[in-house]
């Protein structure tokens, strides 16, 4: 099953893929290709999206990374689609119209990392309080200690 997808990806998109786990395929793609690739995967049975996992690699100088995890519920196989996002231009086209369940996941990734998913209808603060919009607390540059509540002064 995964071998088939791997060959199709190579012939249709020219993308190399590697096995991530025994049941998971890892595909690295470009931002411009993302939407076409997601549509293709949905047509090929990977119609159950799990999540969007953004990773901050800025301390290593590699920008950000967005990982989309999709499952095929019939053959029980996974595909992980990986997109690199440079630090200067934190934008990715949204896939929330292709996979509606990913809309809140993109929204969470936006409020935690500041990655803008262009076309997502609802990029609003969800988990954080309103006054914390734009803090992006899951970024590596976020200083936990700076925002800690001052402890009560000793008498």
């Amino acid at each position, binding site marked *: 099953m995964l071998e088939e997808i791997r060959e199709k990806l190579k012939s249709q998109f020219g993308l190399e893929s590697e096995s*991530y*786990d*025994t*049941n*998971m395929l890892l595909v690295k793609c470009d931002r411009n290709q993302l939407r076409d690739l997601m549509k293709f995967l949905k047509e090929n049975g990977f*119609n*159950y*999206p*799990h*999540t969007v*996992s*953004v*990773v*901050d690699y800025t301390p*290593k100088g590699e920008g950000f990374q967005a*990982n989309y*995890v999709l499952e095929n*519920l019939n053959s*029980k196989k*996974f595909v*992980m689609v990986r997109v690199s996002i440079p630090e200067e231009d934190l934008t990715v086209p949204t896939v929330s119209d292709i*996979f*509606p*369940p*990913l*809309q*809140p*996941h993109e929204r969470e990734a936006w409020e*935690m990392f500041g990655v803008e998913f262009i076309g997502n209808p609802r990029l609003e603060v*969800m*988990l*954080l*309080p309103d006054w914390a919009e734009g803090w992006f*607390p*899951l970024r590596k540059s*976020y200083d*936990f200690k700076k925002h800690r509540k001052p402890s009560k002064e000793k008498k």
Partner: protein
Amino acid sequence: MGNSIATAGYTFVVEESKEISGEDLGLLQEKLLQLNWGVQHPASGPMRLKVWVDGDEVVKVDPDIGYVLRLLEKLVEYRTWINAIVNVERACFIDNFGTMTGYSIAAEKIAGVEVPKKADYVRTILCEGGRIVSHLIGLGSFVGVMGVHTPMQWALIAREKFLDAFEVYSGQRIATASIIPGGVRYEPTGKFIEKMITAVDFLEKEFIPRYGEVFIDNPTLKVRSEGIGVVPKEKAVELGLAGPALRASGIPSDIRKDYPYAAYGELDFKVVTKEEGDCYARYLVIWEELIESAKIIRQAIEGLPEGEWRTKFPIKVPPGEAYVNVEWARGCFGFHLISDGGTGPYRLKMRAPSFANLWAMPEIMKNVKLADVPVIFASLYMCHGDIDR
């Protein structure tokens, strides 16, 4: 007296922008009314649903979450590989074993550590114990939202026996911190096994017959929950439902069966599915899984091998990453764990099943009666700690 609400001076928010009060309240029937379901509703837990109603019919639902946000994914980055379990288990306190197991398997995959067989079996026993504890509360609260609070008390009595077993094992009843990368933390003593068997005995001989007689196939309960919040098979995938809610729509998705972890590959159990996809089907899935879990515990205790229960886990883990799914009580819990060669995780992303169910809920709640909102909410079987993390 006239309209008592009007004289009391209440103000209602209509369509968010217009406000109505006083004499205009007569027109209210023709307009949308926004109600707040929660934060202090007995069934809602720490979250708010903004419910727009047209008369008695729900037009739109918008969840307002974040009341129990602890940012566990960030806290984990400040811990060592083993200490991180205290943050991971707090994703939801009710079934903490599932999340700890998932995180530990991910860490072991990156480090290339193989766990002893005994640890796998103890993990299975604990995970199923956690599932039973969670399902008991799920069953109790489902009937609880309809105004009958007896089943919750019965469930808590059965749950107590399992908590006793966890206490004997780890010293703690709820936040046990007992499953670590490299195995399990404590030796499964004879006393623990004995307590676990007592708990399963009580569940199978006392709780299940008694509860099954009264609250399963109960005509009043069926009137309230059958045919409510129906999700057909295709719609369930499209909405991204997870766990018991997905299985109640007829999709046999169970990580324990699909990609066996711990000792599930060697044990015999069946995946519970229902075809109807309504609230009652979701309730029955939880009920039947409870019975299955008790069987799994018995098998795992019988097959418990001899030997070590933990191996050494390195302090520094080589760079790498892993994505691991586990079947947690409330659905498929995903862990995307990344190591950069340090003494702790570089990044952990937790994919929560309740989060997926929550955002599928507004679609399910369209055009239902206001009285069905709590029933659908409870049938989706969500945990607030899990939604907010």
